[in-house]
């Protein structure tokens, strides 16, 4: 039962942290909440028997992608006036419409998901199994992902390089 409890606690943490992250005006605070939410999801991954995904969530999502965010925020150096502006942008008149849309979508999702039955966990899916299917039936997807990452790298380099050159 310990695992079940952990699951629900992490789910609550993830939800709360995500909501907080979406509503902060300070980007750094929002990011910290987002990291917490990611770590909570990592715990959920671990609990449902996907330790490899959990590790990747921590190493890559929380450990690398979010660091990039912090990095960029540091470079932008947003000040106090940014916070005030964000607060102005979060008026109810702005978010009430989108919120309705989201709620409608959520209701639809719940209707669709509601018919799903069965338990989550069927035991642990180890990193080895994931690796074998990654380089077995999904090898083409791996190649595509590598292409995508290469394209991302070249794109990021291109964007960043122009920035440096114009400054120089």
């Amino acid at each position, binding site marked *: 039962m310990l695992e079940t409890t952990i699951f629900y606690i992490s789910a609550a943490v993830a939800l709360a942290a995500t909501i907080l992250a979406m509503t902060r005006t300070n980007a750094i605070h929002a990011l910290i909440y987002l990291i917490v939410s990611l770590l909570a999801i990592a715990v959920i991954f671990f609990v449902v028997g996907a330790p490899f995904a959990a590790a990747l969530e921590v190493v890559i999502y929380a450990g690398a992608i979010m660091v990039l965010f912090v990095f*960029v925020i540091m470079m932008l150096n947003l000040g106090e006036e940014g916070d005030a502006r964000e607060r102005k942008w979060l008026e109810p008149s702005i978010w009430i419409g989108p919120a309705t849309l989201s709620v409608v979508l959520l209701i639809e999702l719940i209707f669709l998901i509601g018919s799903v039955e069965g338990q989550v966990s069927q035991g642990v899916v180890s990193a080895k199994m994931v690796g074998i299917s990654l380089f077995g039936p999904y090898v083409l997807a791996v190649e595509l992902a590598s292409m995508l990452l290469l394209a991302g790298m070249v794109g990021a380099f291109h964007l960043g390089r122009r920035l440096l050159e114009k400054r120089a």
Partner: protein
Amino acid sequence: MNELAVPLNHLLFLSGLLFSIGMLGVMIRRNIIFILMSIEVMLNACALAFVGAGAHWGQPDGQVMYVMILSIAAAEVAVGLGLVLQIQRRFKTLDMDQANRMRG
């Protein structure tokens, strides 16, 4: 870890909730950094659904999809943040609504 007794649809509810919150974030924020963060939340919600379903069937395919989502997220963030820096330099603001010059 077989004593885990969570119905699959609870996990999917969580995923759906996170997805809706992320989508809401994309719609209501004007700051590009927040929009990128919201997209990360949405991607993560999808990943959660995949991993949960994979765990339900005891198959590695869910985690394989997770790895794919991860690489998409990594590429997206790299390019997206590069764009953020460019936008900040050109428009001196991160307001998404200011960057509206590309129109038909």
